[in-house]
């Protein structure tokens, strides 16, 4: 790895973790929403 190229160390770390967290939450929410829609259709 070339030294000195690295920029925005902590900002990148935070960005990576947030993107992951948000992505996982969105998927969980979509599962929840699909289930809700299905239950509404059933009743």
């Amino acid at each position: 790895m070339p030294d000195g190229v690295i920029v925005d160390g902590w900002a990148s770390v935070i960005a990576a973790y947030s993107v992951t967290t948000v992505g996982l939450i969105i998927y969980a929410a979509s599962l929840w929403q699909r289930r809700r829609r299905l239950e509404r259709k059933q009743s």
Partner: protein
Amino acid sequence: MRGKFQWEHAVLLLALVLLTVGTYIGLAVAPPERHMGDVQRIMYVHVPTAWIAMLSLTVAFVAAIGSLWSGKHKWDAAVVGSTETGVVLTGLLLSQGMIWARATWGVWWDWDVRLTTSLVMFILFAGVLALRASVDSAERRASWSAVAIIVAYADVPLVYFCVRWWRSLHQVQSTPETVDAAMMLPLRINAFGMLFLATWFIVRRARLELAQRQVEETTLPERRSVEEVQHA
């Protein structure tokens, strides 16, 4: 269906605890890496995501074989669950990879072996989901997506080797020797956290699929009486 406690929620709880602890250790306790400094901390989420994404797609492959073999709905539900989870994780893997590339190489994208293979994998399996969406017959949907998944999964090693030969001059990835024990701990905790989270996703999605199929199913119409005539 509702009101009853389902076992996968315990797994979710475990996943959340592990991911919180692992991330805390990774961000606050573990020392920064010698050459790359704090950027290295992306690895604590990146590597587990990669492992579990690959694992999910492997589960999809196994479930696809089971689905073709048995023709049972349960296997098809497992196929959707694991494919969708695998695609979501691969998508996140790509975004993490891009952030990593930006921080270390100064570019958002680089035709690196792993990055490229992940991208092709993502498109391949997302394509399977697109195929599913455009088939109306439940029977056809199950067998076609199973066939497509088996073919796509078998293709991944070919893509990997091809890209590796294509870019044979590229730098070697960080080897395990450079990772010391303090870094392995958060990596492992997060990997298990991610494993349990993926399990929860797969099971939830599979249950959703089964429930959806149940809604589509209609009960047999009532048996009608048959008029029997003996002689002409």
